[in-house]
């Protein structure tokens, strides 16, 4: 599908540095071939289903119990058509088990399939030192030795591993309180609260903040946890086009002017829900414009910094730091500890009244188990490392790696989506066969990448996604780039048709000096 570039920056006076994003249009021939590819696969899918139904081909799909054959079928046949016939063919690109730290290099468990991906067997061998371009390890804290690991070992010995009670009852440890004070200091807000799971942070707290009679304006490409939280809240949800401020403003004006549907009563609250970095597109939210809109129309802003906390900004404080804005402008700052801190869990930061309210009314505080102590300790040590010592080294290393990697990929002629500063780099593949081929070819060259297709992305826009990490050295990036180049030539992935105005290396050095 051709996508017009509607994400043009208006109000560029709000931005302190240039905001470069690009989503190159799909070439028409590629789009046509991709549709044809899916069409052929669908026809073959029907053929195989037919053969399986008439027992000409052995059926390896799991079957319902004999005694329950006359129950209403648990799955509609068509729901699983895509899974049975398209996903199964290239299933070996996902769920690859690893047996080491998910750092810059990892060890994969070798698994083979003798029946075309229906079952897998572990051969017992380990593929060593695969360059990891798939894990969300932006600042390189996924490690099993060093100060963070030692502190986590101490915490395990002191507290144990489990907690067995919710925050409100008997699960509030002193380490949780220390963590929350540290997170509040890190973000620059009054107070914060930590939860045991990032996904659950969204799905359990948005319902506590909004309810019936409120309006949630959510971005088109928001994460599943935000969508689930908004649905569970019971508020009216309206979707604006991805990162498009005109669409958001129009929705705001119409909503306030017309009120609730049918009764036209005024809305109780309006909540704008956006993410810091969108991981499938690699785009960064236009935060200065969103904050300006929020102030003008008196709405509240919920910012989900799952990927951007730690990874963006000169001090690693996330997208607010990247744009140089005041953290107090964002009403609810939410984030997760899984990506940049090498732990698990989520947090919400904001004003003291907000956090006090959440302590009493969040579903997680009352019903769900609190965070495990060694995980909390890992967050504390990694956060102190980002704040305390040479915090800028990590962030600096990451942004240099990101700029280098993106520039090189663009020079080679691939279509890369997203903002120039985002460490998530989606590279377009489009055709269904290339999804499987790319994943496998890169693995042969000892590089682990992530490929994504339908339904996580629109059907013809399948992509490979690289996650650059501060732990990657220049050599590792060069190896990965060489391999991508090779595979790109082999599979003809270099779709980009724009001319490359190549900046000279001297400009790069100057730019990094300016950032000081």
């Amino acid at each position, binding site marked *: 599908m051709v996508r017009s570039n509607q994400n043009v920056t208006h109000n560029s006076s709000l931005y302190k540095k240039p905001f470069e994003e690009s989503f190159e249009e799909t070439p028409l021939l590629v789009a046509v071939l991709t549709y044809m590819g899916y069409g052929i696969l669908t026809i073959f899918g029907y053929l195989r289903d037919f053969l399986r139904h008439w027992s000409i081909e052995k059926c390896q799909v*799991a079957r319902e119990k004999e005694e329950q054959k006359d129950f*209403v079928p648990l799955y509609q046949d068509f729901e699983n058509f895509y899974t049975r016939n398209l996903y199964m063919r290239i299933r070996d690109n996902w769920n690859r088990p690893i047996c080491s730290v*998910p750092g810059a290099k990892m060890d994969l468990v070798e698994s083979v399939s003798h029946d075309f991906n229906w079952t897998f067997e572990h051969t017992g061998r380990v593929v060593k030192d695969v360059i990891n371009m798939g894990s969300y390890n932006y600042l390189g804290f996924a490690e099993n030795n060093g100060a963070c690991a030692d502190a986590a070992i101490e915490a395990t010995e002191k507290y144990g591993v489990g907690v067995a009670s919710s925050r409100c009852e008997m699960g509030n440890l002193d380490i949780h309180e220390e963590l929350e004070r540290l997170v509040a200091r890190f973000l620059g807000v009054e107070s914060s609260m930590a939860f045991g*799971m990032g996904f659950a942070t969204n799905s359990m707290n948005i319902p506590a903040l909004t309810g019936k009679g409120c309006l949630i304006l959510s971005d088109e490409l928001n994460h599943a946890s935000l969508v689930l939280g908004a649905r569970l809240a019971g508020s009216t949800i309206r979707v604006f086009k991805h990162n498009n401020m005109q669409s958001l403003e129009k929705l705001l004006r119409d909503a306030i*002017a017309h009120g609730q549907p049918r009764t036209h009563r005024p809305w109780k609250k309006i909540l704008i829900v956006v993410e810091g970095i969108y991981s499938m597109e690699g785009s960064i939210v236009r935060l200065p414009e969103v904050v300006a809109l929020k102030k003008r129309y008196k709405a509240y802003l919920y910012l989900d910094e799952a990927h951007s906390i730690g990874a963006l900004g000169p001090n690693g404080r996330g997208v607010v730091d990247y744009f140089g804005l005041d953290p107090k402008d964002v009403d609810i700052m939410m984030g997760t500890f*899984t990506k940049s801190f090498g732990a698990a869990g989520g947090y919400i930061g904001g004003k003291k009244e907000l956090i006090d309210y959440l302590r009493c009314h969040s*579903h997680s505080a009352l019903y769900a188990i609190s965070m495990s102590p060694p995980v909390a300790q890992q967050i504390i040590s990694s956060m102190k490392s980002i704040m305390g010592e040479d915090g800028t080294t990590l962030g600096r290393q990451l942004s240099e790696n990101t700029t280098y990697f993106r520039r090189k990929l663009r020079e080679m002629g691939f279509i890369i989506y997203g903002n120039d500063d985002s460490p998530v780099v989606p590279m377009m593949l489009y055709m269904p066969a290339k999804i499987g081929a790319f994943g496998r070819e890169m693995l042969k060259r000892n590089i682990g990448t992530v490929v994504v297709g339908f339904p996580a992305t629109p059907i013809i826009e399948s992509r490979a996604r690289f996650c650059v990490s501060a732990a990657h050295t220049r050599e590792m990036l060069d190896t990965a780039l060489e391999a991508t180049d090779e595979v790109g030539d082999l599979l003809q992935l270099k779709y980009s048709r724009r001319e490359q105005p190549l900046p000279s290396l001297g400009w790069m050095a100057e730019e990094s000096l300016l950032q000081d």
Partner: protein
Amino acid sequence: MTSQFKIATFYLYRMRQSWTTYLKELLEIVHYFYFAPAYHLILEGILILWIIRLLFSKTYKLHETYKLTEKEKEDLIEEWQPDPLVPPVSKDHPSLSYDVVTGHKITINGKECINFASFNFLGLLDNERVKQKALASLKKYGVGTCGPRGFYGTFDVHLELESRLAKFMKTEEAIIYSYGFATIASAIPAYSKRGDIIFVDEAACFSIQKGLQASRSFIKYFKHNDMEDLERMLKEQELEDQKNPRKARVTRKFIVVEGLYINTADICPLPELVTLKYKYKVRIFLEESMSFGVLGEHGRGVTEHFGVNIDDIDLISANMENAVASIGGFCCGRSFVIDHQRLSGQGYCFSASLPPMLAAAAIEALNIMEEDPEIFTVLRGKCKHVHKALQGIPGLKLVGVQSAPALHLQLERSSGSRDSDMQLLRTIVEYCLERRVALTLARYLEKEERFLPSPSIRVVVTVEQTEEDVHNAVSCIQEAASAVLK
């Protein structure tokens, strides 16, 4: 005009012609078009374009004929005042002052107490073996997994834990989630969609309620543990189905129950449920968070307790945060059912996987459970003992069956308002805390629960408690009750 008239009459005659003459007539039409005057063709062209435009233009909505002017919009935007983001919370709301707990000898606010409040049924929170295994895993894998299961977040530890759980529960397959609350809340919406029907017990816990809400199905509540009520509802549904068989053929029906209810501390009548299942063709989802590792000869839960064949239950879901003393949850059952969640369980696909050290701790806990099945008999004995000891406290009534490890103590006579009841119970809890017995109030979200249970004190039995501890605690509670509830 003559040519137009000719074309009109032509059409009238066409219907009587045969195919060969039809072709001849067609050629004549072309001839006429070629020789028709220009204005005529232009007029016809404009008419056709007008028709096309009318077909594609938006329909005229009568009820939105008004349009606000820009000035009116600006005024409305200026005037609108939203509610504050959060309503103010009173300063002495109980949740604002949590007890600070340190370590697992349970030091609360500086005082060392005996723990009657955490769900540490098998005493594994402090177990050295579990800690050592977790440390070994930490030294190998680090803490976090940095990714969801699909993208290099699957560790060999996860696969091992899943196969161990499946073997322990004697099912085909198991799937792990990284958070206990998210387990059943993601499992239910993966199978039950809009238009399906779910029959749930009234005393279902909050995570089940959230799962039901996310599924958008029709929810029908039956009275707690009342099989006749359930059968009545199933019969009604059967009559409905007979009226509309086509719809009934695609409407899935489920029963969701808990093995051991957390809110009422009693057990569901599983054998009757299984008979109802086959009689009315309804699938059963069983939530075993409290009964896994507690009921049954080997700790396999309520199916072992009643001797029901585990294949008869479509899905068993449990969390590993109570008896297993780790973090996370799992679902187990036949591959036909469980495999579906690997692509449609939201908490599985879109969330980071369980940290490997917590999975290693769970594996070691399973090892301990398998090596020493005596531990369940000991726990059952202690539960019986505590149950007997807590009977007959003046002013408080005990809610729960003999084999339940987490009991409730409710007020015999309510004072009328929930707040004052809670206050009385809190005073009892604080009294006990002073004397080094750690108890807690059972906490609920008052406005969100569907059937709010009465205020109560939660008393948890663990294998670590000695007879003396129990005796101490009971006398403490008795003193507190007589002091507070005159």
